[in-house]
């Protein structure tokens, strides 16, 4: 397998031409790895184009992040050639509403439920189902993956806090 980035460059050109908002925000990290950032207003058109027109018909996972003032969500897409295009967008933390992508990817609901439970996203259109991965009695408004969230004071400190940080 050679490490050319011809396909990646073609993807970059086509996407930037179609969605100028991506200009400068789409980079090829190495062969088979593209990272792109798009404002939420253009996210759905871009996502639709990627999946339907550019045949990125595999969703490997969705990563949610806490960006401080906003919440971030990254969709790691792939297609037959197996390159990975990670498309990132943000929504305000005060109103973290996104749309489900289950119409494109029926198996995306597990990943979307994680966004709801662990970061506090609201995913519109998410099909009914059990929450995941937290229990039904988990207290509302507690989102473990948010940066400012710590377990309750009663919980013991982590090993990292107890130990001195040192190399192995």
């Amino acid at each position: 397998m050679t490490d050319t980035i011809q396909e990646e460059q073609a993807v970059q050109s086509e996407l930037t031409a179609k969605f100028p908002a991506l200009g400068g925000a789409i980079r090829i990290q190495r062969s088979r790895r593209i990272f792109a950032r798009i404002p939420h207003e253009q996210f759905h058109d871009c996502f639709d184009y990627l999946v339907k027109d550019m045949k990125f018909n595999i969703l490997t996972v969705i990563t949610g992040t806490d960006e401080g003032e906003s919440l971030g969500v990254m969709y790691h897409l792939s297609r037959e050639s197996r390159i990975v295009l990670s498309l990132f967008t943000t929504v305000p933390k005060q109103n973290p509403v996104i749309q489900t992508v289950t119409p494109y990817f029926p198996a995306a609901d597990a990943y979307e439920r994680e966004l709801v439970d662990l970061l506090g996203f609201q995913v519109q259109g998410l099909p009914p189902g059990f929450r995941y991965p937290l229990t039904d009695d988990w207290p509302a408004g507690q989102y473990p993956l948010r940066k400012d969230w710590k377990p309750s004071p009663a919980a013991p400190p982590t090993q990292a806090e107890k130990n001195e940080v040192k190399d192995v």
Partner: protein
Amino acid sequence: MPVLEKVVTWARIKSPWILHFNSGACNACDIEIIAALTPRYDIERFGIVLKATPRHADVLVCSGPVTHQIKDRLIRIYEQMPEPKFVVAVGTCACSGGVFKGCYNVSEGVDSVIPVSAYIPGCPASPAAIIDGVAKLLGSLKQS
């Protein structure tokens, strides 16, 4: 419990019926527990038999740090076991929470939820260590 049943139950302690339960472990200890049953280690030659229901079990062999999801079920299983009953915590996570100690959603090992009779550390505990630990538990019971 009628006298005859008590005698039968105590006799079984010499060759206990065990129930294996995973309380949110990574499976490393679980596969070593099952390896203990396979020909190379063959824990069954000690008369130890794996059972499928708590109502027939004398010894609960428990792996994992006890996640929040599973805590109630672990307690319920313990309550369903008839007396006399014993609990063996297999693996460092079951003993103390292991590497997951302090993580949200995780208790600090099995004895934070139910009483434990024997602790077998290791990450994972090897089949030899598991057999050793169970044998020691049985030995201490015979003495008492």
